[in-house]
C-alpha cells in the first residue's frame, strides 16, 4: 500500500485514460470551502452526492470542508490523494493559491473538476457561476432600484463588501464597481472582516451617522448575512423605508426580508444544475471520457478548460415563487413563518 499513485495507477479499465469504472466504483473527493454560508452543506453536498450515486452507484463521495482556510484545503487535497480518491470536485477557498495542490493532484493521476470557483492549475473541467457577473448583477439591481426612485446620484450610497482576506470578495467588489462607478455617488465603502454581520451593522451605523441617515439612497451589501446587519441598522437609524439594499446567496432570512420589503434583492445561484454538472464531469473524467462543456475557459495555466457556466438569477419580491420556491431551494412553509405570512400572501406565495 504505497504511494506513488500517479505512476502505478491509470490502467484499471479498457479506456487508456480511465482511472476507474462505473462497475467497480471509485472514490470522488468533494472539497468545499466553508460552512458559514448555508448553501454548502445544505445543497451542494447532498446534491452532488445524490447525482454521483445515480450516475455511479458504487462510487463513494468523500467530503471535506476547509473552513475558509487555504492551507487546510491543501492538506485536505493531500489527504484525499492518500485516501485513494480518483477525482476531485474542488471548490477552492483561494482559487489562485490552490494551483500547487491541483498540480500535485493531477501529477498523481487524479482528475480535478473546478467547482463554483475557477481554481488555478491544470484543472480538467469547470462548472460555476461567474463571480464577477454576480457582482455586476448586484450592482445593476441596485442601480435599477435607484433609478426607479429618481436620479441615482441624488444622494450617497454605502458599500459593504466582503472579507478583505477572501479573494472571492474582491471579485464581487470588482463586478459591482464596474457597474456602479460613475453612475452613483459612493459615500462610504467598507471591507468587512470575516463577512461579519455584526461588523456590517457597525459599519452601516457609522456610515449613516457620517452621511446623515436620511440622505442615504442605497446600500450595497455583498451577501445576505451582512445585508441582515445593514437592514437592522437602516431601520434603527432612520434610513428611509424602502431604500434599496442588495444581497447574495438567497438565504432564507434574506428571502423573508425581501418579502417584507427590507431588502431589495439577492442573488440566487441554482445549485442543482451546477451540482449535476459537477457529478457528470467527475464521472466522465474518471471513466476516461471527455467532459462536456458548453464553453471553454482559461485560468492562466490551462487554456481550454471545458466549462459549463450557469447564470445566477436576481431574486426580487416579484420572482421569489418562480426561482427559489420552484426549484425547491426553499419551501413556502419554510419561508412563510407567522411573521412573514402577511407579506407572503401579498406576494402570492401560499
Amino acid at each position, binding site marked *: 500500500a504505497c504511494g506513488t499513485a500517479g505512476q502505478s495507477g491509470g490502467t484499471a479499465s479498457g479506456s487508456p485514460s480511465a482511472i476507474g469504472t462505473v462497475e467497480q466504483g471509485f472514490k470522488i473527493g468533494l472539497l468545499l470551502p466553508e460552512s458559514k454560508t448555508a448553501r454548502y452543506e445544505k445543497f451542494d453536498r447532498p446534491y452532488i452526492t445524490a447525482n454521483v450515486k445515480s450516475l455511479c452507484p458504487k462510487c463513494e463521495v468523500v467530503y471535506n470542508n476547509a473552513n475558509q482556510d487555504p492551507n487546510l484545503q491543501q492538506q485536505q487535497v493531500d489527504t484525499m490523494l492518500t485516501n485513494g480518491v480518483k477525482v476531485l470536485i474542488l471548490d477552492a477557498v483561494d482559487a489562485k493559491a490552490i494551483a500547487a495542490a491541483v498540480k500535485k493532484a493531477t501529477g498523481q493521476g487524479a482528475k480535478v473538476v473546478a467547482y463554483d470557483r475557477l481554481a488555478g492549475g491544470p484543472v480538467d473541467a469547470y462548472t460555476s457561476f461567474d463571480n464577477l457577473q454576480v457582482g455586476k448583477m448586484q450592482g445593476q439591481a441596485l442601480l435599477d432600484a435607484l433609478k426607479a426612485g429618481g436620479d441615482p446620484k441624488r444622494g450617497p450610497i454605502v458599500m459593504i463588501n466582503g472579507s478583505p482576506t477572501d479573494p472571492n470578495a474582491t471579485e464581487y467588489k470588482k463586478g459591482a464597481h464596474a457597474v456602479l462607478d460613475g453612475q452613483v455617488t459612493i459615500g462610504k465603502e467598507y471591507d468587512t472582516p470575516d463577512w461579519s454581520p455584526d461588523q456590517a451593522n457597525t459599519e452601516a451605523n457609522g456610515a449613516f451617522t457620517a452621511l446623515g441617515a436620511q440622505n442615504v439612497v442605497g446600500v450595497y451589501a455583498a451577501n445576505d448575512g451582512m445585508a441582515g446587519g445593514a437592514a437592522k441598522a437602516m431601520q*434603527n437609524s432612520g434610513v428611509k423605508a424602502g431604500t434599496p439594499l442588495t444581497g447574495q446567496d438567497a*438565504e432564507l432570512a434574506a428571502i423573508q426580508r425581501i418579502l417584507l420589503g427590507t431588502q431589495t434583492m439577492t442573488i440566487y445561484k441554482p445549485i442543482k444544475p451546477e451540482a449535476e454538472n459537477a457529478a457528470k464531469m467527475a464521472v466522465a473524467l474518471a471513466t476516461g471520457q471527455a467532459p462536456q462543456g458548453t464553453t471553454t475557459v482559461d485560468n492562466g495555466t490551462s487554456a481550454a478548460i471545458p466549462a459549463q457556466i450557469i447564470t445566477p438569477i436576481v431574486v426580487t419580491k416579484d420572482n421569489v415563487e418562480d426561482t427559489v420556491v420552484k426549484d425547491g431551494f426553499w419551501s413556502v412553509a419554510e419561508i412563510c413563518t407567522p411573521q412573514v405570512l402577511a407579506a407572503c400572501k401579498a406576494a402570492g406565495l401560499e
Partner: protein
Amino acid sequence: MSDPGNAQVDPRLLVREQGFAGYLGEFRRRVRGGELGPLPVIIGLIVIWIVFQSLNDRFLSPQNLSNLSVDIVATGLISVGIVFVLLLGEIDLSAGAVSGACAAVLAVLSVNQGWNAPAAIAAAVAAGALMGLLHGFFFAEIGVPSFVVTLAGMLAWTGFQLWVLGPNGTINLPDGLVSSLTDTYFAYVAAAYGLAALATAVFLAVSLAGNARRRAAGVPSRTVGDIVFRTAVLAVVAFGAAYVLNLYRGLPLALLIFVAVVVVTDFVQRRTKYGRSIFAVGGNIEAARRAGINVAFIRMTVFAVSGGFAALGGIFAASRISSASQATGQSNVLMMAIAAAVIGGTSLFGGRGSTYSALLGMLVIQSIASGMALQGVSNSVQFMVTGAVLLAAVVIDSVSRRSQKASGRA
C-alpha cells in the same frame, strides 16, 4: 486614615491635609505614585474621542454616541463574564463560541420550536451556564488547564452552533422581546434624567449611611467633602449621559441593562463572600484552600457565570441584527471581550480587576471601531490604525503604572 480620633495611627503615615488643598496634595502624590486606577484609560478614551471628533464632527453627535452605547452591550456582557474568569487567573476561550451557540439555541427555540421569548431566553442563558459548568468541571475536577478546556469548548460549541442552526443557516428573529432588547429606547425625557437622579441619590445615601456606621464603629471614615466630590462626579457623568441620549432617541434599554449588570456584578465581587472567595482564589490559591474555601466550587461556578454571560451577550448580538447565524460570536468577538477587560484594567494573572473594566474597555474598543467606521478608510489602514490606537490607549496607563512600579508598589 484621616480620622484624628483614632489612637493607633502609624506615625510614618502621611496624613492628608483637610479640604481642597488636601485633595490636590493627595492627587499629586497619586499621579507620582501611579495609583490612578482607571484614570489613565479614561484619559486615553477622551483623547480618542477628541481625535476622532476632529476628524469627523459627527463622531460626538448624539446619534453616534447613542449607537455606540448600544454597540458595546453584546461584547461587553461577554466581557463581564470574562472578568470573572480573569480574576481567577484563568482564561475562557470559549466565550465567543458559547455566545454564538446560545444565540442559535435561542433562535431555534423561539422561531422553529415556537417557544415564547422569555422561556427561550432563559433556556439559552441556562444552556450557556451549563456549557460553562462543563468547562469548569474539566478544569476544576479533572485538572485540565483552562486554556485547553475552553479551546476544546470553542471548537465543540462552534460545531454545536452549526449543528443547531442546521443547514438553513441564518434564522431571522421576529419582532418581539428579543429584538426589543436592543431596539427599545426610553424616549420620555424624564426617564433618563430620573434614572440619573436616582443613581446619584442612592449613591449619596449609601455613602452617607456607610460613613455614619463607620464613625459609630470608630473606624476611619471619609470626609464629607470627599463624599460630596464623588457624588458630584457621578452626577456629572450620569446627567451628561442622560442629556446626550435624550438628544437622540432616549435612554437605550440595552445600555441600561448593561450598566445594571456591571454595577450588580461589581457589587457581588466586592461585597459578597462569593466575590471575596474569587479574589482569594485568584490571588493565592493555596491560601484560599487553606482558608477552607471550596476552590473547586468557586472555579466551576465562575466558569458557569462566564458561560451565562457569554450566552447573554450572544442574545444581545442576535437582537442587534435581529438574527442568529453561524457568524454570531465568531470572528474576533472573543478577542475583543478579553481585550476590553484587560484594557479596562483587569489583570490576566488573577486577583485584580472589576467588571467596570468591561464597560470602560468596551468604550475604548468600540469608540475606535465607530471612529474608523465613520472615516470609512480602507481595511488595511483600518487594521493598522486600530492596532496603533489600541496600543496608544493603553500606553498612557502603562506609563503611569511604571512610575508606580518605580515607587515600589508593583
